[in-house]
């Protein structure tokens, strides 16, 4: 496979928050090696919201999780590539990025939840059923803001309190917090945390946050739970928020409200967002740019309106045709024939060629790289290549009808 151009894949010149290069993530399965993510590259710019769209199983969630290195190893392996990340400081001082796949575990922990936060698909599953909302949100503050928690203390706080603020308390220390002399400092710490948790919850427009704090996840509605997740994710004002299908598990009526909330908070906090979804119409409403993913590859990437108005990749076209809209007549909804190919030990070929109506022999032999060609957004399709580029006859290239989305 040829390496794609390292040039910026966007028309924007804003500074980047993250840059994914040639990311490859494999899984060992009984059947063989599964190439879940197979050479994915894209950038996320400061303050933008990027939508990563694709069918279930195309590798978008794996890509998202790999930002926080949440892929279980084994069976997974980070088989190649880099994820560069610029923290706020690095961006301001022009410093060099860190590679999220290489940083030591301790530094990774500093980044998780602090610089990069994540919202999970199903808030019902992503919240621990055994812990109260307060405990779960507070963890973020303890973990990343332990210095703040001890702000305004007269002199150095007692050692057990410092340990408590850093979540390093021993097994029986909580007993000591129930009795003097540690009782009042412990209360003070607790109150400070409560305030922070309350504020974070309030920001997500949760009514009566003090009451919600004491409840357990199963006592809350789905929307409420997702708000808690959002509050928890934005608590430390991260540079990048990864939202992994945040509304899929919710009622349709709630979905829009949550989307709006994320959008609003994003603007307020100037946070970049990587938005994972299988739902193009949802993404269209809140994302600045869209990357379409198919079978472990990026098919095309570009400004939202461009992708919608002029889909380049045959797969994108198929996806858009499958969106129900008022314009469609009943029964006219298009479907893409065929099924997603096996990702186990894939051959060098266009992943989409078995389902593509434009496919030629070439597509079955040669893997199209994601390239930005003059006048075009980056797209991974031989249909946009010149015969010279590939060294083949012109009639071997697929012919795409640019005007028929």
């Amino acid at each position, binding site marked *: 496979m040829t390496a794609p151009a390292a040039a910026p894949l966007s028309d924007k010149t804003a500074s980047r928050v993250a840059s994914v290069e040639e990311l490859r993530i494999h899984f060992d399965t009984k059947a063989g090696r599964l190439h879940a993510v197979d050479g994915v590259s894209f950038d996320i710019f400061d303050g933008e919201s990027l939508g990563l769209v694709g069918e279930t199983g195309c590798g978008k969630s794996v890509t998202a999780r790999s930002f926080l*290195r949440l892929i*279980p*190893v084994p069976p997974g392996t980070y088989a190649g590539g880099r994820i560069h990340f610029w923290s706020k400081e690095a961006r301001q001082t022009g410093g060099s990025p860190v590679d999220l796949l290489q940083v030591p*575990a301790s530094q990774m922990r500093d980044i998780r939840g602090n610089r990069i936060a994540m919202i999970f698909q199903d808030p019902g599953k992503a919240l621990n059923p055994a812990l109260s909302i307060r405990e779960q949100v507070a963890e973020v503050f303890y973990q990343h803001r332990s210095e703040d928690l001890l702000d305004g203390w007269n002199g150095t706080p007692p050692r057990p309190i410092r340990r408590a603020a850093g979540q390093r308390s021993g097994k029986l220390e909580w007993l000591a917090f129930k009795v003097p002399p540690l009782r009042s400092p412990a209360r003070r710490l607790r109150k400070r945390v409560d305030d922070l948790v309350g504020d974070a919850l309030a920001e997500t427009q949760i009514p009566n946050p003090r009451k919600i704090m004491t409840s357990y996840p199963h006592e809350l509605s789905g929307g409420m739970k997702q708000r808690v997740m959002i509050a928890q994710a934005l608590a430390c004002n991260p540079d990048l928020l990864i939202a992994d299908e945040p509304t899929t598990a919710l009622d349709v009526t709630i979905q829009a409200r949550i989307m709006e909330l994320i959008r609003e908070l994003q603007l307020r906090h100037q946070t970049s967002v990587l938005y994972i979804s299988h739902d193009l119409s949802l993404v269209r409403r809140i994302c600045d740019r869209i990357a379409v993913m198919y079978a472990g590859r990026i098919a095309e990437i570009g400004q939202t309106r461009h992708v919608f108005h002029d889909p380049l990749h045959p797969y994108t076209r198929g996806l858009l045709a499958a969106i129900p809209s008022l314009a469609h007549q009943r029964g006219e909804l298009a479907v893409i024939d065929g099924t997603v190919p096996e990702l186990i030990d894939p051959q060098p070929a266009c992943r989409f060629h078995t389902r593509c109506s434009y496919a030629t022999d070439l597509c079955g032999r040669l893997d199209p790289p994601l390239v930005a060609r003059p006048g075009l957004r980056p797209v991974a399709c031989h249909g946009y290549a010149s015969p010279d580029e590939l060294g083949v006859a012109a009639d071997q290239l697929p012919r795409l009808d640019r005007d028929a989305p």
Partner: protein
Amino acid sequence: MRTRTNRFSRFHLLLIVAVVLSLVAAACSSDDSTETSAPSATTAPSSDTTAPSTDTTAPSTDTTAPPDDDVNNPGVYVHAADDDPLSLDPAGVAAGEAGETIILQTYDRLVEIGPGGPDLIPGLSTAVPTVENGGISADGLTYTFPIREGVTFHDGSTLTADVVKFSWDRALEMDLPEGNSSILADLVDSTSVDGNNFVVTLKDRNAAFLNSVVTAAVASIVSQEGVEANGGVVAGQPNEFFSSDVIGSGPYTLGAWNRGENIQLDVFDDYWGEPAKLDVRIEQVPDDDVRTLGLRAGDFDSIETDPTFVTDIEGAEGVTIFAEGWLLEPVHIGLNLDIREDLLPDGDTVPADFFHDPRVRRAFNYAFNYDNFVEGGLSGQGGVVPHYLPQGMLAYDDSLPRFETDLAEAERLFTEAGWWDDGFEMTVLVEEGGIFEVAGLVLKDSLESLNPNFRINVAAVVEVQFDDAHAAVPFEYATWIKNADPFADPAALFAAYIHPDGEWGDVHKFRNGYQDADGIAALIEEAAVSVDTDRRVEIYQELTQLLFDDPMWVIPGNEKALMAHRSWVQNFTMNPLWPRPSLKFALFDK
């Protein structure tokens, strides 16, 4: 990430590994004290098997051992027993039951069996009645006991001849079925008080009266005040208080009876004789192995010992095995002359008259491998017994005829009786575990190796099943194995086990087999009432000869009196005529 070890669990694993390793290490290094476990029984203090215990009148002691500062449980003697009493009431305790030993330590009797053998010593009677001292009337029917003065009971009341009479009358009146009062009732015609003397008149002359009756637990003297304050005497009804408590005059008072755990005996300071030196705790330890371990650990001063585990203790540091004298309760195999074929276990093929033929009974006696039982089952701590006089018993003599394994003779007898070719199958009933099961296995091996057509099945059942079957009439098995009840005098032994109309003669229908049942009966009866010891010896020795030709039992062997104890126990002695564990704790020190 996920693969990271967490310190907490790693610590736990380390801890577990450490514990396991230390266990293994300790186990490997634990055998150093026991390397010298040569398979022989010679380390036990030897006793001359030819000398009956009647000769060893002096108490055997370990006085050479200096008082050890390192003794465990100083001031308390700890004995590990395997059986808890059912009752502590002299009137309610059965012969051979665990309550007897408590009664022995806490009550006194008129005369006692001395520490050295069958010889009697004065108890609450200041003299052992004899014809010579006038205590026994010339006709042998009246016994006079001069009662000791200045004896106080545990409750502070004083002993008088009236109290003695009260005690005996109490047992007779209560007449508890589980108790042993029948031995009094069978012999005693009347009791009376004459001044300071207690006088007993017998129904018949009886040679064993002093040895078997006056010294028995049922003849213990209880505090009259104590009885009257605690429910009095009710015929046929056990007394609740005395079933679980003691008011006697013995060297010990009952400290506590934690049922199933331990019994504590405290030294009685106002004892009339030599006071006891150590308090006593009798621990209930149901598992044999744990008893031997406790002895090794030093937490027990003596343990209920069985010959089968002599090899497990001998050579252990700080432990001595007392092995002098003999038990008076040989292991015997009962031969049922009253077989009910329909009651026999499945597979048994022996007919009702199987044992009627003396040749068959003799053949069993010749076939049994005595060496295997004595050397294997009894670890060499035993000997073969003439019919039916165990070592240590009056009239016993090494020259008396006894069976030896003789396979040719067994074959000849089985052939003559007509069993050799067809063979037979038979079940022998034993209680599981211990030497009885071993005896059963030896019997099985003896007969099955003699002739493959012979099949012996050993039915080793639990205690309740054995007791139940053992008490059933008619007896439901062709053979069974147990030991004899310990009797001090051959009269009782012959009455129970040899007399054609005796206890077992009746059950097993000895009359079906004896060639001269009446002759044997006459001899036994004569010896029972004779007061002429020489004549009695003569009769019993004659009987052993008769029984050699016409045996009613197979007697695998008799055990030596054995007790393993810590070497730090001073003045250790035991007397098999005392109820199990045959110890008088008041004699010991450590």
